[in-house]
Protein backbone atom coordinates (compact mmCIF):
# COMPACT_ATOMS: atom_id res chain seq x y z
CA UNK A 1 0.00 0.00 0.00
CA UNK A 2 2.75 2.45 0.93
CA UNK A 3 4.95 2.29 -2.13
CA UNK A 4 8.63 2.87 -2.47
CA UNK A 5 9.33 6.54 -3.16
CA UNK A 6 11.21 5.81 -6.36
CA UNK A 7 8.15 4.35 -8.07
CA UNK A 8 6.21 7.56 -7.49
CA UNK A 9 6.06 10.51 -9.83
CA UNK A 10 5.91 14.15 -8.87
CA UNK A 11 2.77 15.84 -10.11
CA UNK A 12 3.57 17.69 -13.38
CA UNK A 13 3.73 21.43 -12.78
CA UNK A 14 0.51 23.29 -13.44
CA UNK A 15 -1.74 20.26 -13.10
CA UNK A 16 -2.23 20.31 -9.33
CA UNK A 17 -5.19 22.73 -9.53
CA UNK A 18 -6.82 20.53 -12.13
CA UNK A 19 -6.32 17.39 -10.03
CA UNK A 20 -7.72 19.04 -6.89
CA UNK A 21 -10.71 20.47 -8.77
CA UNK A 22 -11.43 17.09 -10.40
CA UNK A 23 -11.21 15.33 -7.05
CA UNK A 24 -13.67 17.74 -5.47
CA UNK A 25 -16.02 17.47 -8.46
CA UNK A 26 -16.03 13.66 -8.27
CA UNK A 27 -15.96 13.07 -4.54
CA UNK A 28 -17.72 16.13 -3.17
CA UNK A 29 -16.38 18.14 -0.22
CA UNK A 30 -13.11 16.73 1.16
CA UNK A 31 -10.32 17.71 3.55
CA UNK A 32 -6.73 18.17 2.33
CA UNK A 33 -5.70 14.69 3.41
CA UNK A 34 -8.68 13.17 1.59
CA UNK A 35 -7.80 15.06 -1.58
CA UNK A 36 -4.17 13.85 -1.47
CA UNK A 37 -5.31 10.30 -0.72
CA UNK A 38 -7.82 10.29 -3.55
CA UNK A 39 -5.30 11.52 -6.12
CA UNK A 40 -2.78 8.92 -4.98
CA UNK A 41 -5.23 6.04 -4.97
CA UNK A 42 -6.95 6.92 -8.24
CA UNK A 43 -3.59 7.14 -9.98
CA UNK A 44 -2.68 3.69 -8.56
CA UNK A 45 -0.13 5.34 -6.31
CA UNK A 46 1.82 6.74 -9.24
CA UNK A 47 1.14 10.41 -8.52
CA UNK A 48 2.46 11.74 -5.25
CA UNK A 49 0.89 14.86 -3.78
CA UNK A 50 3.37 16.94 -1.80
CA UNK A 51 1.81 18.44 1.30
CA UNK A 52 4.15 21.38 0.86
CA UNK A 53 2.41 22.28 -2.38
CA UNK A 54 -1.10 20.96 -1.65
CA UNK A 55 -1.98 23.34 1.18
CA UNK A 56 -0.59 26.52 -0.41
CA UNK A 57 -2.45 25.54 -3.61
CA UNK A 58 -5.67 25.13 -1.62
CA UNK A 59 -5.14 28.58 -0.07
CA UNK A 60 -4.71 30.14 -3.49
CA UNK A 61 -7.82 28.36 -4.72
CA UNK A 62 -9.85 29.67 -1.79
CA UNK A 63 -8.68 33.19 -2.62
CA UNK A 64 -9.48 32.75 -6.30
CA UNK A 65 -12.95 31.65 -5.28
CA UNK A 66 -12.73 28.21 -6.88
CA UNK A 67 -13.33 26.43 -3.57
CA UNK A 68 -14.67 27.37 -0.16
CA UNK A 69 -13.26 26.07 3.12
CA UNK A 70 -15.20 25.26 6.26
CA UNK A 71 -14.55 23.35 9.47
CA UNK A 72 -16.55 20.20 10.05
CA UNK A 73 -16.33 17.03 12.09
CA UNK A 74 -15.10 13.83 10.49
CA UNK A 75 -16.56 10.38 11.02
CA UNK A 76 -13.99 9.91 13.79
CA UNK A 77 -15.30 13.12 15.41
CA UNK A 78 -12.19 15.09 14.60
CA UNK A 79 -12.20 18.70 13.41
CA UNK A 80 -11.15 18.96 9.79
CA UNK A 81 -11.15 21.76 7.24
CA UNK A 82 -13.21 20.64 4.30
CA UNK A 83 -12.99 22.15 0.81
CA UNK A 84 -16.01 22.46 -1.44
CA UNK A 85 -16.11 23.21 -5.17
CA UNK A 86 -17.86 26.46 -6.19
CA UNK A 87 -19.51 27.31 -9.51
CA UNK A 88 -16.42 29.32 -10.46
CA UNK A 89 -14.29 26.29 -9.59
CA UNK A 90 -16.36 24.05 -11.82
CA UNK A 91 -15.91 26.49 -14.68
CA UNK A 92 -12.17 26.65 -14.00
CA UNK A 93 -12.02 22.84 -14.06
CA UNK A 94 -13.47 22.77 -17.58
CA UNK A 95 -10.91 25.34 -18.68
CA UNK A 96 -7.96 23.53 -17.13
CA UNK A 97 -8.98 20.15 -18.55
CA UNK A 98 -9.34 21.47 -22.11
CA UNK A 99 -6.01 23.29 -21.81
CA UNK A 100 -4.36 20.15 -20.49
CA UNK A 101 -5.84 18.05 -23.32
CA UNK A 102 -4.49 20.48 -25.86
CA UNK A 103 -1.00 20.37 -24.30
CA UNK A 104 -0.98 16.56 -24.10
CA UNK A 105 -2.09 16.20 -27.72
CA UNK A 106 0.61 18.62 -28.83
CA UNK A 107 3.28 16.80 -26.81
CA UNK A 108 2.12 13.45 -28.18
CA UNK A 109 2.46 14.75 -31.73
CA UNK A 110 5.97 15.94 -30.99
CA UNK A 111 7.26 12.76 -29.35
CA UNK A 112 5.57 10.33 -31.73
CA UNK A 113 7.97 8.52 -34.04
CA UNK A 114 7.60 9.93 -37.57
Amino acid at each position, binding site marked *: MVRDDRSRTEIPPGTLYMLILTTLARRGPL*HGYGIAKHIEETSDDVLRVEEGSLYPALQRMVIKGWVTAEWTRTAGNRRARVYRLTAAGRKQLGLEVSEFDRAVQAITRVIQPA
Partner: protein
Amino acid sequence: MAWAGETWRRLCLLARRSQHDEELDEEMRFHLEMRAEEHRAAGMDSGEAAYAARRRFGSPTLLREEARDASGWPFAESVWRDVRLGLRSLRHSPGFVAVALVSLALGIGVNAAVFSFINAGNSASASRSARAHPASFGRSSAA
Protein backbone atom coordinates in the same frame (compact mmCIF):
# COMPACT_ATOMS: atom_id res chain seq x y z
CA MET B 1 -15.62 41.22 -10.69
CA ALA B 2 -13.42 38.18 -10.03
CA TRP B 3 -10.68 40.63 -9.11
CA ALA B 4 -12.88 42.40 -6.56
CA GLY B 5 -13.88 39.10 -4.97
CA GLU B 6 -10.25 38.05 -4.74
CA THR B 7 -9.22 41.30 -3.06
CA TRP B 8 -12.11 41.03 -0.62
CA ARG B 9 -11.14 37.45 0.34
CA ARG B 10 -7.52 38.51 0.80
CA LEU B 11 -8.60 41.35 3.09
CA CYS B 12 -10.78 38.98 5.11
CA LEU B 13 -7.82 36.65 5.61
CA LEU B 14 -5.55 39.55 6.52
CA ALA B 15 -8.03 40.75 9.13
CA ARG B 16 -7.95 37.42 10.95
CA ARG B 17 -4.37 36.47 10.24
CA SER B 18 -3.51 34.86 13.58
CA GLN B 19 -6.68 32.77 13.59
CA HIS B 20 -5.91 31.80 10.03
CA ASP B 21 -2.40 30.66 10.98
CA GLU B 22 -3.79 28.57 13.82
CA GLU B 23 -6.27 26.95 11.49
CA LEU B 24 -3.49 26.06 9.09
CA ASP B 25 -1.53 24.49 11.97
CA GLU B 26 -4.54 22.46 13.00
CA GLU B 27 -5.04 21.37 9.42
CA MET B 28 -1.41 20.22 9.21
CA ARG B 29 -1.72 18.35 12.52
CA PHE B 30 -4.82 16.61 11.23
CA HIS B 31 -3.00 15.62 8.07
CA LEU B 32 -0.05 14.20 10.02
CA GLU B 33 -2.33 12.21 12.32
CA MET B 34 -4.25 10.74 9.41
CA ARG B 35 -1.03 9.80 7.65
CA ALA B 36 0.40 8.23 10.81
CA GLU B 37 -2.80 6.26 11.26
CA GLU B 38 -2.46 4.97 7.74
CA HIS B 39 1.10 3.80 8.49
CA ARG B 40 -0.10 2.11 11.70
CA ALA B 41 -2.78 0.32 9.73
CA ALA B 42 -0.03 -0.89 7.41
CA GLY B 43 1.70 -2.45 10.41
CA MET B 44 4.17 0.14 11.71
CA ASP B 45 4.49 0.78 15.43
CA SER B 46 3.12 4.14 16.49
CA GLY B 47 6.44 5.96 16.97
CA GLU B 48 7.70 4.83 13.62
CA ALA B 49 4.38 5.73 11.99
CA ALA B 50 4.46 9.28 13.36
CA TYR B 51 8.07 9.68 12.28
CA ALA B 52 7.33 8.41 8.76
CA ALA B 53 4.38 10.81 8.49
CA ARG B 54 6.54 13.76 9.55
CA ARG B 55 9.31 12.78 7.17
CA ARG B 56 6.85 12.51 4.32
CA PHE B 57 5.29 15.84 5.25
CA GLY B 58 8.46 17.88 4.96
CA SER B 59 9.00 21.21 6.68
CA PRO B 60 5.90 22.68 8.35
CA THR B 61 7.63 26.06 8.59
CA LEU B 62 8.20 26.19 4.87
CA LEU B 63 4.61 25.17 4.22
CA ARG B 64 3.34 27.81 6.63
CA GLU B 65 5.39 30.45 4.87
CA GLU B 66 4.21 29.43 1.43
CA ALA B 67 0.60 29.34 2.53
CA ARG B 68 1.05 32.79 4.02
CA ASP B 69 2.52 34.13 0.80
CA ALA B 70 -0.29 32.51 -1.16
CA SER B 71 -3.00 34.16 0.90
CA GLY B 72 -1.72 37.70 1.38
CA TRP B 73 0.27 40.43 -0.32
CA PRO B 74 3.80 39.23 0.37
CA PHE B 75 5.43 42.32 -1.17
CA ALA B 76 3.32 44.90 0.68
CA GLU B 77 3.70 42.96 3.92
CA SER B 78 7.48 42.82 3.65
CA VAL B 79 7.66 46.55 2.88
CA TRP B 80 5.48 47.27 5.91
CA ARG B 81 7.73 45.07 8.08
CA ASP B 82 10.80 46.96 6.80
CA VAL B 83 9.22 50.33 7.61
CA ARG B 84 8.35 49.19 11.12
CA LEU B 85 11.84 47.81 11.68
CA GLY B 86 13.27 51.14 10.50
CA LEU B 87 11.09 53.14 12.90
CA ARG B 88 11.93 50.80 15.79
CA SER B 89 15.67 51.09 15.24
CA LEU B 90 15.38 54.89 14.96
CA ARG B 91 13.67 54.97 18.35
CA HIS B 92 16.65 53.14 19.85
CA SER B 93 19.13 55.84 18.75
CA PRO B 94 17.58 59.28 19.37
CA GLY B 95 21.02 60.98 19.14
CA PHE B 96 21.44 59.75 15.61
CA VAL B 97 17.92 60.88 14.72
CA ALA B 98 18.66 64.37 16.13
CA VAL B 99 21.96 64.69 14.25
CA ALA B 100 20.36 63.46 11.03
CA LEU B 101 17.39 65.83 11.41
CA VAL B 102 19.56 68.87 12.23
CA SER B 103 21.96 68.26 9.35
CA LEU B 104 19.08 67.69 6.95
CA ALA B 105 17.33 70.86 8.17
CA LEU B 106 20.52 72.93 7.93
CA GLY B 107 21.37 71.52 4.52
CA ILE B 108 17.94 72.15 3.06
CA GLY B 109 17.64 75.56 4.76
CA VAL B 110 21.03 76.81 3.60
CA ASN B 111 20.46 75.46 0.13
CA ALA B 112 17.09 77.19 -0.14
CA ALA B 113 18.49 80.47 1.24
CA VAL B 114 21.44 80.52 -1.14
CA PHE B 115 19.19 79.65 -4.04
CA SER B 116 16.66 82.37 -3.34
CA PHE B 117 19.45 84.94 -2.73
CA ILE B 118 21.14 84.19 -6.06
CA ASN B 119 17.83 83.82 -7.83
CA ALA B 120 16.68 87.23 -6.58
CA GLY B 121 20.00 88.83 -7.61
CA ASN B 122 19.85 87.21 -11.01
CA SER B 123 16.31 88.24 -11.79
CA ALA B 124 16.97 91.76 -10.54
CA SER B 125 19.99 92.15 -12.80
CA ALA B 126 18.07 90.48 -15.61
CA SER B 127 15.22 92.98 -15.34
CA ARG B 128 17.74 95.81 -15.01
CA SER B 129 19.50 94.72 -18.18
CA ALA B 130 16.11 94.29 -19.85
CA ARG B 131 15.28 97.86 -18.95
CA ALA B 132 18.76 99.05 -19.80
CA HIS B 133 18.90 97.35 -23.11
CA PRO B 134 16.35 99.34 -25.13
CA ALA B 135 17.67 102.51 -23.48
CA SER B 136 21.22 101.80 -24.46
CA PHE B 137 19.92 100.85 -27.86
CA GLY B 138 18.11 104.13 -28.07
CA ARG B 139 21.20 105.95 -26.87
CA SER B 140 23.36 104.30 -29.44
CA SER B 141 20.85 105.08 -32.19
CA ALA B 142 20.58 108.63 -30.94
CA ALA B 143 24.33 108.93 -30.96
